């Protein structure tokens, strides 16, 4: 039971990291990123390929130390975000979201089809777990919780610090009124790019934290529902633009998710096979109810910066 709780906390921390990154992009900058799963996936696969022992199944087996894996998991999504940002950040609002969703689906197709690179739908096995040989397997969860929790705290401090700085005030300005912000002489495109790349790097690290915990990665984990819209749900429940709220939201939503696993024991078998869809129903209902019932918190954020400029 206690080990179950530890694994719950680890997964919650990983999702909290991804949600903090989305909060930076959406909550503070107003970028409707519907492709966050792609950056999470890039981080996961980069770290897996860099650190795995030699194999013929897919590219890599470089067997590099885990620190290199994590660095790569931040770097590759960052570079990809930078390249995508050139065309995509010229788009505003909904079209940006659609372009990112399209990019997510295309990258997912590539990972599924190019088995020389990623071993396709079979996924990558045997991804090393840090200090797994040294530590008693019974206590391994506690150890990994320190890593995941530590990374979450680092991500929280880095993001909170930066959105509280003058840099973060410009981001808020962009999300509230982009025209007004650029009229006050700020290069909005450049700031959006910095926020986009920074957030994507944090998502990549969350992906690496995930694969080094499970030791296995396959494309199924990164379908848009589980990887992208699940994180959106966390941010909506936790409160857009509220970093502490988002962390609470991550554990809360994961608790509901895991809780529906227990439900399968109590419902008839015919219903249990459709539990995935009942979860999907949950996602939809929570998302819509949050949006409908919390109009002040979510729909009309106070225009702090824009009003101050006027």
């Amino acid at each position, binding site marked *: 039971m206690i080990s179950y709780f530890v694994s719950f906390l680890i997964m919650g921390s990983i999702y909290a990291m991804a949600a903090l990154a989305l909060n930076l992009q959406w909550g503070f900058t107003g970028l409707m990123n519907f492709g966050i799963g792609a950056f999470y996936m890039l981080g996961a696969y980069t770290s897996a390929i860099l650190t795995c022992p030699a194999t013929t199944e897919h590219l890599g087996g470089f067997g590099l130390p885990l620190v290199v894996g994590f660095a790569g998991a931040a770097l590759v999504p960052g570079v990809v975000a930078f390249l995508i940002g050139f065309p995509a950040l010229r788009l505003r609002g909904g079209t940006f979201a659609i372009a990112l969703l399209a990019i997510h689906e295309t990258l997912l197709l590539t990972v599924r*089809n190019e088995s020389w690179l990623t071993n396709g739908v079979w996924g990558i096995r045997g991804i090393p777990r840090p200090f797994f040989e040294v530590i008693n397997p019974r206590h391994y969860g506690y150890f990994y919780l320190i890593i995941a929790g530590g990374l979450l705290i680092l991500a929280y401090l880095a993001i909170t610090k930066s959105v509280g700085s003058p840099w973060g005030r410009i981001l808020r300005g962009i999300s509230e009124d982009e025209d007004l912000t650029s009229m006050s002489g700020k290069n909005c495109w450049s700031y959006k790019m910095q926020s986009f790349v920074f957030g994507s790097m944090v998502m990549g690290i969350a992906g690496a934290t995930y694969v080094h915990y499970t030791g296995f990665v396959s494309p199924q984990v990164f379908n848009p529902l589980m990887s992208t819209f699940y994180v*959106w749900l966390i941010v909506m429940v936790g409160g857009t633009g509220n970093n502490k709220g988002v962390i609470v939201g991550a554990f809360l939503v994961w608790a509901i998710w895991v809780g529906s696993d227990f439900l399968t024991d109590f419902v008839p078998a015919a219903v249990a096979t459709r539990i995935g869809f009942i979860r999907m129903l949950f996602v939809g209902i929570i*998302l819509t109810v949050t949006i409908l019932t919390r109009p002040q918190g979510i729909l009309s954020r106070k225009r702090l910066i824009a009003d101050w400029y006027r």
Partner: protein
Amino acid sequence: MADLLVSGIIYGSIIALGAIGLTLIASILNFFNFAYGDLFSLGAFITFLFLDLLGDWGAFPGLSFGGGLVVATLLSVLIMLAIILLIDRFFFKPLREFDATPLFMSLASLGLAFILRAIINIVWGPEIRYYSTAIQISKKLPFGIRVKPDELFIVICTLALVTLVYLILKKTRMGKAMRAMSDNPVLAKASGVETVRVIMWTWIIAGTLITVAGTLYGIQVQLRPTMGWHFLIPLFVAVIMGGIGSFWGALIGGMVIGISEEMITAVLQNAFHSMQIDADMSGYKPAVAFVLVVLILLIKPHGIFGKKEH
């Protein structure tokens, strides 16, 4: 190649039907409706439900279906319009009254999309279904083109509906009011356009189109609960490519997406084959639309027929 062109036109005409409805919603209600794809599936499945209830009515000569499917489609349109107007009354109308931003409306529609897809999955299950399992014999036309009677029916049905919508938009008072709303909502309201009725008629036209499009897709291919979600990206691409709010843009955009999805992977495969490069392109068919949307947005961010500022 000619065969691929023909199947591209048939697929494209179904996309065009949906895209015209989506572009009307995007311009008149001013948000990207992510639930539209799942309304497409729901329409097709409700037709399936009525087809089942009505029993066997026999088939029209040459076609795979008979009067039963026509009646089922009409009943399905009525039910779908009731569902869509209820959704608008209890979901989108409160959001409009909160003055929700277009991005929040999109996000809310995404929650709705999950609810609809989950309900389809729970009610009908994830199995593939068919309106008819009868095998059709293709008719030979000049230039080595082969067409099934069903496919001819789909194209004729699309042409008839598109003409009808065009006449409504061009000739009726309501159509004029709708075009005014999409051009400039503030000015339209000031000139005494009844926005409530315009919004209602927009949903009625879009709802009819999407239900028929879903049913036609069901005749041509098969019914799967996820079909609408996968159809959503080509729909959005057609709308963005044509320019948001443009009737002709959506029609031409839909055709372009349909034809290029059918042809581009085949052309690339032939090219690779002649260069003796061993590459399997068939898995990338869905990526064609994604790459197209990124290209279009790069070259003409407002679409082919789009106005500079909406």
